[in-house]
């Protein structure tokens, strides 16, 4: 395969995978604390429109990103309040958030539907970008791609090297025991959920500010759900989330891949578009077949509301 084609496919894969990484890592933290927030799709949608709108009005994409994180976190606050404080069923509340978030974003985003944003220049890292084959693909990216890598390392350190991360994991494993020892389950879960919301918002903003700098209703088209599936596929381990996100990114740009490989395959475009979703199903089936792996790595209290009794 020609170097240019390979590089551009790798480039596109990274871009496609980046929002998934950001959202999935945020979900990972929330789920490690034992909370299952299915509202990622809604939070991404709100992040996308908030980011788009703020960037549109201020001309500053970074302000847009910050606004998106706030939007995502604000939405997740509703979820946290309902499911942690009011002990509502986490699955139903997450679904409500997904529906509400997408609907609200459609409502708020109506006036912006025909607008576009100026493209943001990528940040080229010298020396690294000159590496043949992979240099241009990895190191001539949007700044936010590098941030996604930073988030990955940060989360790795947090979960496995810091005390707070240890406490978080213990809360996800057994909130009643953590409470008996004296840790505030509520506080940690709120923070974890808010972090997940902020990340979901940021992931959505990536799509509307950097990826295709426009807004349209339904532009998230299931990426929030795929990110959730990604966490399961990665059995709640950050490195596997990264790998999985880029794999899915690759599947998403399958059309590009097929053209570039020079193979003359005539597949209906709808099938290619459906590939990421089919791939998600297949991957979930494979990973669910091993219950031991799931038991050892999934937070045991995931999805169950914690009722403080004293």
């Amino acid at each position, binding site marked *: 395969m020609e170097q240019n084609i390979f590089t551009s496919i790798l480039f596109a894969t990274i871009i496609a995978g980046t929002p998934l990484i950001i959202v999935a890592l945020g979900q990972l933290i929330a789920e490690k604390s034992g909370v299952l927030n299915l509202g990622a799709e809604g939070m991404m949608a709100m992040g996308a429109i908030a980011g788009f709108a703020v960037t549109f009005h201020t001309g500053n994409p970074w302000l847009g990103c910050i606004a998106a994180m706030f939007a995502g976190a604000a939405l997740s606050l509703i979820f946290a309040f309902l499911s942690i404080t009011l002990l509502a069923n986490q699955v139903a509340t997450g679904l409500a958030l997904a529906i509400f978030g997408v609907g609200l974003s459609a409502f708020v985003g109506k006036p912006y539907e025909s607008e576009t944003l100026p493209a943001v220049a990528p940040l080229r890292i010298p020396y690294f970008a000159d590496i043949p084959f992979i240099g241009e693909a990895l190191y001539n990216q949007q700044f936010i791609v590098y941030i996604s890598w930073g988030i990955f390392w940060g989360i790795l350190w947090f979960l496995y090297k810091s*005390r707070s991360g*240890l*406490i978080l*994991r*213990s809360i996800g*494993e*057994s909130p009643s*025991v*953590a409470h*008996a*020892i*004296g*840790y505030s389950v509520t506080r940690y879960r709120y923070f974890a959920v808010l972090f997940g919301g902020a990340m979901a918002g940021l992931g959505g903003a990536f799509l509307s500010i950097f990826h295709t700098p426009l807004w349209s209703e339904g532009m998230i088209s299931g990426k929030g759900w795929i990110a959730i599936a990604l966490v399961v596929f990665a059995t709640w381990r950050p490195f596997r989330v990264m790998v999985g996100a880029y794999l899915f990114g690759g599947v998403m740009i399958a059309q590009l891949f097929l053209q570039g490989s020079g193979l003359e395959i005539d597949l209906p475009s709808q099938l290619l578009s459906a590939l990421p979703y089919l791939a998600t199903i297949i991957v979930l089936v494979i990973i669910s077949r091993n*219950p*031991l792996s799931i*038991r*050892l*790595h999934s937070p*045991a209290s995931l999805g169950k509301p914690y009722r403080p009794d*004293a």
Partner: protein
Amino acid sequence: MNTMASLPSPLLELKGMRKVYQSVVANDHIDLCVLPGEIHAVLGENGAGKSTLMKIIYGVTQPTAGKLFWQGYEIKVASPAQARKLGIGMIFQHFSLFETLNVVENVALGLDHPPKLKQLAQEIIEISNRYELPIDPFRSVHTLSVGEMQRVEIIRCLLQKPKLLIMDEPTSVLSPSAVRKLFETLRQFAAEGCSILYISHKLDEIQALCHTATVLRSGKVVGNCIPANETPQSMARMMIGKDLTAYKHHAFAPGETLLQLKGLSCKTKDPFGIDLNNIHLAVRAGEILGIAGISGNGQKELLYAISGEELVSKPDAIQICGVSVGKINPRGRRHLGLCFVPEERLGRGAVPQMSLEDNALMTMIKPAVVEYGMIQYTKVNAYASACIQKFDVKCSGPQAQAQSLSGGNLQKYIVGREIMQDPKVIVLAQPTWGVDIGAALFIRQALLELSNKGVAILVISEEIDELFEISDRIVVMSDGKLSPAKLTQETNVEEIGVWMSGMWPEAEQITALPAT
């Protein structure tokens, strides 16, 4: 309290402790006094208020009223962290450990300002050597045995150099030899000046270990005593308030074998479970067979296999009234005359949010209440009402939600609804666990009467005393294997205790055992 005037000042003193949960008074005007270096028992049966009192001392919950004095100063223990700072350590009944984390991580979580993990591991090894509590700091907790888990809990407390150690029912999961080892360790702590609050309902242990005892009943202090000067009967009388009535025993004239296990082996699907290994067992009509052993030796898996919740590969490994049932599900086995009462009341034996009526419907085979797929609710209601009446279940009626009943009453209902199915074989796991003494006696008496009617009864229990009270024969379960059976009157607690570590003679032929 007056006799202590000349002794050193108390380490911990509670005056007038009171805790009210909505309409339930868990603790009522409790006074308690613990001296330094003293092993002080808090004695009482289930529901007496012991756990609540400990939660107050450890700061998990706040009292409604009352004063707490630590080393002479009045204080409020606002949180477990503060309790630890004061020098109070707590070892919970159902260990406060995180199974997927390793020992060092677990210990670190129980400390407030732990050192780096490598250094912590060193400290753990030092303490484990000093008190002879061997443990490998980097093992995952889920791979530890129950005794080892308790060691982790103890080491965690010791690292904080406690002045007071609270132990909540520490021996319920230990074999007799492990209990002896634990007592040696506790005596060593006491000799070094650490006080111990020992919560238990096991009278013989308290006699063996504790210097003083405070007896609780229904949330109040009903007396103090020095266990060495008492007998188990006198302490029981203080605990219960009246003399235990002896059981009406039954005539032991066993009939044909109704439940037979032959070469039952089963690989468990639970990553933390135990495999069953070549189990042979025969329970005959009119006899009560008890399976002794500490939880976690395969009892759970054995019950799953017998009940049909887990199917086995060889259909004839399990036979009920001569029929091979290995591949038949629980409902099918009920049709053949099997009934069973599981260990978990809420969530398995009964659905907490459903009414008692619906909970009866769940396991009813007779009388037939389903016609053309539709439920005849009046018949179900009549059944449930009869059960409530016959088994003295205190509740608001058949429509009461299962979770609104007390543990003892719900257990009576579940046992009752199974007995009313007129079974040929009935299997019960931990039938009186967490149940008040009145209900426990009721249930045991009901089982004795049932055996008189020719029903084969299998009881799995952690309480050796209970098994010695009601069973005709006893076997021991250890690590997924079953010992030979012995007539109860031909053995004793010590021998069973030895067998619980798996050390039973293999080829011994026991009298009165039918050919298997």
